[in-house]
């Protein structure tokens, strides 16, 4: 069994702080939003916790960003500028998830530290990490102190618009976490990807090659 070092330490630190932070943000966010329905903590406590955890998660994002900006492993997030190749590999991966995986077919994607995501994951993480997450940070920051950022809030269409974007992205992330955990079980063993996110090493299945 070959072992590949796919998840460097800064990425693992970022990942687990981020995971804990996201769960805590979802719980406190639900408490803030549905104050009459849920009684986990007082409204004030939920708001304070949500704000503090939000800043921790924003700071933590920069661990991830700075690591990748200073590492050639950032190639894992680079866009594939060859559409023909991209669509061919994407449909191959979709066929695997839609059928091959249930018949024990080999995964068409062979990860390495510079190409650790399959085409579907790559597309998803590019959009999530580089667009949706920053959008959530910005809207969260604006809602944290509406008065201070009143100019920016008005520019975006008012508090209602900013709040709606923040809540829609929150709903997306609440679902994303479930999908993310499910896909995490699709390694060569159900716990393989989880172990890799603790140890950094992913066990690769042997395949006859050159």
């Amino acid at each position: 069994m070959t072992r590949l070092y796919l998840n460097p330490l800064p990425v693992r630190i970022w990942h687990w702080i981020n995971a804990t932070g996201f769960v805590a943000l979802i719980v406190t966010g639900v408490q803030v939003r549905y104050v009459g329905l849920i009684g986990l903590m007082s409204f004030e406590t939920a708001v304070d916790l949500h704000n503090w955890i939000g800043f921790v998660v924003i700071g933590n994002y920069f661990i991830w960003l700075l690591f990748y900006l200073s590492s050639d492993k950032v190639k894992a997030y680079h866009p594939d500028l060859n559409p023909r190749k991209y669509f061919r590999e994407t449909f191959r991966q979709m066929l695997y998830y839609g059928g091959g995986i249930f018949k024990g077919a080999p995964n068409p994607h062979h990860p390495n530290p510079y190409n650790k995501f399959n085409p579907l994951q790559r597309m998803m993480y590019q959009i999530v990490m580089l667009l949706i997450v920053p959008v959530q940070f910005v809207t969260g920051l604006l809602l944290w102190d509406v008065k201070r950022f009143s100019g920016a809030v008005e520019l975006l269409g008012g508090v209602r618009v900013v709040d709606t974007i923040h809540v829609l992205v929150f709903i997306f992330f609440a679902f994303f976490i479930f999908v993310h955990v499910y896909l995490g079980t699709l390694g060569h063993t159900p716990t393989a990807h989880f172990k890799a996110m603790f140890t950094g090493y992913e066990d690769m299945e042997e395949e006859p090659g050159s």
Partner: protein
Amino acid sequence: MNTSPKVLVVDDDAVVGRSFDRVLSQKGYAVSTALSGPEALNEISGKDFDVVFTDIKMPGMDGFEVTKRIKEKCPWTPVVIVTGYGTAANEATAEVLGVSGFVRKPLTPEMIEGITLKALHEKEAGEAAPQAAEAAIEPRPEMAETSVWKTVAGITKNTALLLAAPFVGLVYAVSLPFVGLGLLAWFGGRALVRRYKAG
């Protein structure tokens, strides 16, 4: 040390040779590649190499035979097996032949550099010149000068690609169903035409 350490990469897949070349040339090594066993032996006959990397499965002459012939001619040259077919039996055979390493594909640039350094260290240690190994692997001065610019250019390129990535991803995500339907219509249409013509 004035001369660069010389590395020979033997693999019928030219991409492997290019990968080694890309990684090691930047570090001051002189990399030669061969696509077959006979080509590798021809290289070896005309030049002394500091380390040889070879694949196992190659048409004509396999990596074990290449290793055996190299060891017969230059027993002091470290040979490292690089394979995607890393079975225990292959590893045992490689050990009997006296290889300096047995590594499995795919290899990262760090792994390529690491195994090269290890093989060179072993060679230098074998020649009772432990400090020479350190000197042999030092990058050449002109490479150090350009490395700052390379770093700046690399960070700029990374940032630009990262900024573009989510938008390229969005374009792909939006166009994916249309491309899928288009392909389905194309192949379905072709199959129908073929059936119509056959009928």
